[in-house]
């Protein structure tokens, strides 16, 4: 099987400082990869580099499209990149306010990606939006409410619906559960696990929460100081950590 996304020696620098350095990984269709590490370890930089929001200084990043075409993402033309983002990728922001349009209704938020790829039938857009609100456990009656009228957890679920409505193959998430209280987090994680399995989604999830990683991830990458210090199957890494930093990270989780 060809990997969906394949990174080799990916390096991002902010001037002389290192954002992330020499990161390599393969992501296969339907696979959930979690990137864990402390603040400042380069997790978000890596995610932004993969999302092509930050230019990479070195390395290569290849993506296989739905029709089998292999794309060199780092040298992709802008129109092609934007088309790819609209049709095959999603990006869930840590703060739903960054990923949603706060001054238009929930339905318009979910419908916008559809309209961006050419949907021009109001009734169908609305029906799809309503359906997706149901799938992320939002009350479809509130389709015409503004996102500001929603709670933080609901906004996050709305953002997820907005990202999944076009049927992407790869979703990048930056701390999707941070800033939510524990019970809401649990529900959201449950939802994410169900959706990724149902839709056969490949995900890269950045988190500092080992619990999130254990629940969602198939594979884990541990980062420190911009480098990947350990990677492997989730259970293997968490139950038998080899690197001192991973051992510290695992042992510093509070017992449930």
């Amino acid at each position, binding site marked *: 099987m060809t990997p969906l996304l394949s990174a080799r020696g990916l390096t991002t620098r902010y001037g002389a400082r290192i954002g992330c350095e020499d990161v390599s990984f393969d992501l296969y269709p339907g696979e959930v990869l979690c990137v864990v590490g402390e603040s400042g370890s380069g997790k978000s930089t890596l995610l932004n580099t993969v999302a092509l929001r930050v230019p990479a200084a070195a390395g290569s990043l290849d993506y296989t499209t739905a029709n089998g075409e292999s794309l060199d993402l780092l040298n992709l033309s*802008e*129109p092609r990149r*934007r088309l790819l983002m609209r049709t095959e990728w999603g990006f869930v922001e840590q703060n739903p306010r960054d990923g949603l*349009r706060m001054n*238009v*209704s929930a*339905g*318009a938020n979910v*419908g*916008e990606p559809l*309209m*961006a*790829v*050419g949907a*021009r*039938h*109001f*009734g169908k*857009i609305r029906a799809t939006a309503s359906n997706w609100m149901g799938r992320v456990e939002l009350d479809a009656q509130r389709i*015409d409410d503004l996102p500001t009228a929603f709670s933080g957890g609901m906004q996050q679920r709305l953002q997820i619906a907005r990202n999944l409505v076009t049927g992407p193959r790869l979703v990048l998430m930056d701390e999707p559960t941070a800033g939510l209280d524990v019970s809401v987090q649990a529900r959201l994680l449950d939802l994410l696990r169900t959706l990724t399995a149902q839709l056969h989604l490949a995900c890269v999830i950045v988190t500092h929460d080992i619990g999130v990683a254990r629940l969602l991830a198939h594979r884990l990458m541990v980062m420190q100081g911009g480098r990947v210090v350990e990677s492997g199957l989730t259970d293997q890494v968490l139950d038998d950590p080899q690197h001192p930093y991973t051992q510290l990270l695992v042992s510093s989780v509070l017992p449930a």
Partner: protein
Amino acid sequence: MNARDTNEPARAEAIVEGYNFAYLDEQTKRMIRRALLKAVAIPGHQIPFGSREMPLPYGWGTGGIQVTAAIIGHDDTLKVIDQGSDETTNAVNIRRFFARTAGVRTTTRTVEATIVQTRHRIPETPLTDRQILVYQVPMPEPLYRLEPRVAECRKLHALNEYGLMNVKLYEDIVRHGSIATTYDYPVIVNGRYLSAPSPIPKFDNPKMHMNPALQLFGAGRERRIYAIPPYTSVRSLDFEDHPFEIQRWEHACEICGSRESFLDEMIVDDKGKRMFVCSDSDYCQEQVAKGAEATQTPHATQGERA
């Protein structure tokens, strides 16, 4: 009734000395013409230009007046309308401005004009291929309420990504049950560029489509010029199940009886009595004259509408 030009005090119409023809200097006019040529070459695309300060405030038609100054010649006949009327402050002053600085003929009759500068309306009388319509545009960027970043807006135009505009129409339907945008209704020009038709009512949008006249748009404060060349397709955005519609009235114009034209609703007394009249004053008078010819009875009082 067409003798209104001569009613204005002769002194106000006299040519003033000391200004270049049509106020702007020749270099500025050339610069604007270059922008206009580019604009005509790429229908609907906004071309930046070095907008000059004009002797009227932004928002009063500084863009339109500069475009008119750049294209007007000695043989032109100018008509200026504001909200369809030739008699409002803005229309009277801009008309007089060109009468005094360029010494050109002015008119209130659409058929006589070679250049029509307009704010908020397209004349009801169909334009011909010998006429140019100049619009005054307050905000040339149709996306600006949805996408505040100018660089990003340009990118959306460049890459033909106009899904965002439909989000606005979607919101309209959600909140009002139908597309409630009634003026400055977004259009796609020549199947490519999204453009703001300036704040004309959407009633006038169909007139832009395949119009024989050249349509020029000038935004003075925003420093943009764009154009719709003659016989160019102009499509108003909509949804398949909520197609574009123009306004309709249950009333006829109380002066001329027209049911075809765009009507203004006027409140005529303190008790809230209303009156519907044509917004296009020239068209209204023409209809009255036609009616008078047909019945052979003079409508002296009705012809006096201001």
